[in-house]
């Protein structure tokens, strides 16, 4: 009796898991499917294999501008967020200061705030300050939402750092800067790379803040959204989406690989912490 119920529950658990995964990922698989479909209308049955939608992307000048804009924003965001995140993670791991918990809490808050609220607030603020919208206002918004991710990743790297390693380096005659360069940086480097990749990916995919805060230069997600109004462009948007999807997956896998390598270097259990 008990083995039967165990069998049933085990079986249902499998079914549940499969349905769950289908629900999550089936729409994602539609993207490449229609990107290679030889028809202008997005519907079944599939008409045949083609790569012409990718060729269309190659020829669209406005798209290339959007890609350049997105790359500028994503790279700037990744670098700034990681530097800010490294400073905060180091301060949080190393020093005790009054108000540390609330300060860290406020830095991490954008992680859970609805993005639309952040976007509208930033827009109002920038208008009040009389600043004109540009790609740099988008970078500012993205840094706000990426820094918490950067802190989360780098905190584990900095917390795993034994204080006495720094003291040992200092004791052996090395300067503060030399100690940072020869001991701290190599040990947290995999975490830094992981943070750069995650922030780059988040910024690249982000739509709401980019939509509200950008001026005349659009980022890639905003460009895609603008193209959705023209049904004939839909297949090429699918092709573009496929490329972005592949890129994101590769970047996230790389980021996790670097994070685990960092943990391993310091002898920490690799499965602890992180996002995957």
């Amino acid at each position, binding site marked *: 009796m008990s083995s039967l119920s165990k069998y049933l529950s085990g079986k249902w658990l499998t079914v549940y898991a499969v349905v769950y995964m289908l629900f999550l990922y089936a729409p994602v698989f539609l993207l490449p499917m229609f990107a290679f479909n030889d028809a202008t209308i997005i519907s079944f049955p599939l008409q045949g294999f083609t790569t012409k939608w990718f060729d269309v992307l190659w020829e669209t000048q406005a798209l290339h501008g959007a890609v350049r804009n997105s790359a500028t924003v994503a790279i700037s965001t990744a670098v700034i967020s990681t530097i800010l995140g490294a400073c905060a993670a180091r301060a949080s791991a190393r020093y005790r200061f009054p108000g540390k918990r609330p300060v860290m809490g406020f830095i991490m808050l954008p992680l859970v705030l609805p993005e639309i609220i952040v976007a509208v607030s930033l827009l109002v603020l920038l208008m009040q300050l009389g600043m004109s919208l540009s790609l740099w206002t988008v970078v500012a918004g993205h840094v706000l939402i990426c820094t918490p991710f950067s802190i989360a990743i780098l905190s584990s790297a900095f917390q795993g750092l034994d204080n*006495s390693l720094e003291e040992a380096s200092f004791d*052996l005659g*090395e300067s503060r800067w030399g100690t940072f360069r020869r001991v701290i940086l190599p040990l947290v480097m995999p975490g830094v790379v992981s943070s750069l990749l995650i922030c780059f990916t988040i910024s690249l995919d982000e739509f709401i803040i980019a939509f509200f805060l950008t001026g005349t230069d659009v980022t890639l997600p905003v460009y895609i959204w603008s193209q959705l109004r023209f049904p004939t462009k839909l297949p090429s948007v699918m092709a573009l989406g496929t490329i972005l999807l592949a890129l994101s997956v590769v970047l996230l896998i790389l980021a996790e690989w670097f994070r685990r390598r960092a943990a391993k270097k310091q002898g920490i259990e690799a499965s602890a912490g992180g996002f995957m």
Partner: protein
Amino acid sequence: MAAIDANDIIVLSDVTKTFGTFQALKGINAGIREGEFFSLLGPSGCGKTTLLRMIAGFDEPTTGTIDINGKPMAGISANKRPTNMVFQSYAIFPHLSVAENVGYGLKTQKMPKKEIATEVDKALDMVDLHGLGDRGAHELSGGQRQRVALARALVMRPKVILLDEPLSALDKKLRDQMQVELRSLQQTLGITFILVTHDQEEALIMSDRIAVMFEGEIAQLASPEELYRRPRTKRVASFIGVMNFLDAKLGSQDETTLTINIDALGPVQVPIDIAPAGLNPATIDAVGIRPEMLTVLGDGNDNAEHKVEGEVTGTAYYGDMTYYTVQLPGSGEPVTISMRNTAGRSVLPAGSKVMVRWGAESVVLFE
């Protein structure tokens, strides 16, 4: 106060350290001689590690001065001091090989690569790690990590090597071996070693001199033998080895001798110079006798000058030694007596009536 002379490589004068409202060190005065093995011994929280870290330059004294090699160290940071530290956690750089770890400080000094390699090999030979230079830090055992940490300090040829509980992470057998090795290495090289430890046995085995610290103060600074035989306070006496305390009072005194009335043992005459300096004989309220200074005799057939009847209340057999708990006349605490298990001497069962023999020269006076 320890006398300070010209041979002292480190001079600590009125060193205090305050953390918030907590006074970690309350005026330390000591001189550490060039080439000696010096230990800071005390329970955790006594300030010994704080003192070591201030000598290394990781912390500054709140008041007072530290001189190393004749130079005041105030404002001189750890990377400019002629000291090197072996950390409790060893602090081996995990991303570097053994050779890179040992050569780390030499690289800082911009020494050419070839010379670094030669120096590193020499240092690795000194600590018996010959040929392990290419190993990664994570491939080392605990004992090997300890040796790498030591080699990394030795290669710098510092005036002083500071050791912060370097053996506490090792198992008993390895620890015993390392104690002997460290001591002989120190004697061969003639470098001043300062060891922080809470293990009294370790301090006795390795040191030339020991400073026993309690609550931020040096309770006694002396050689291991003097510390063991002539502890100045009851607290030092019970921290170093085992000590039997017996209530006692001064009977009478003259120019050369004190007559002490020990409650459980009766009167005894001791030379006046065994009293620690500064002790007022009138304030004596106890004497101490080490377990091995008392002898249990199965019968009274011994013409010893001092003997007293007692009853064995417990025995603990250690193989080479037997520890007896013996109740002496009167209502005091039973005393512990250790006896070497020599041929023909059998272990006495609990309840045996015995004679306990003792000697006047083994008595330590306490106030």
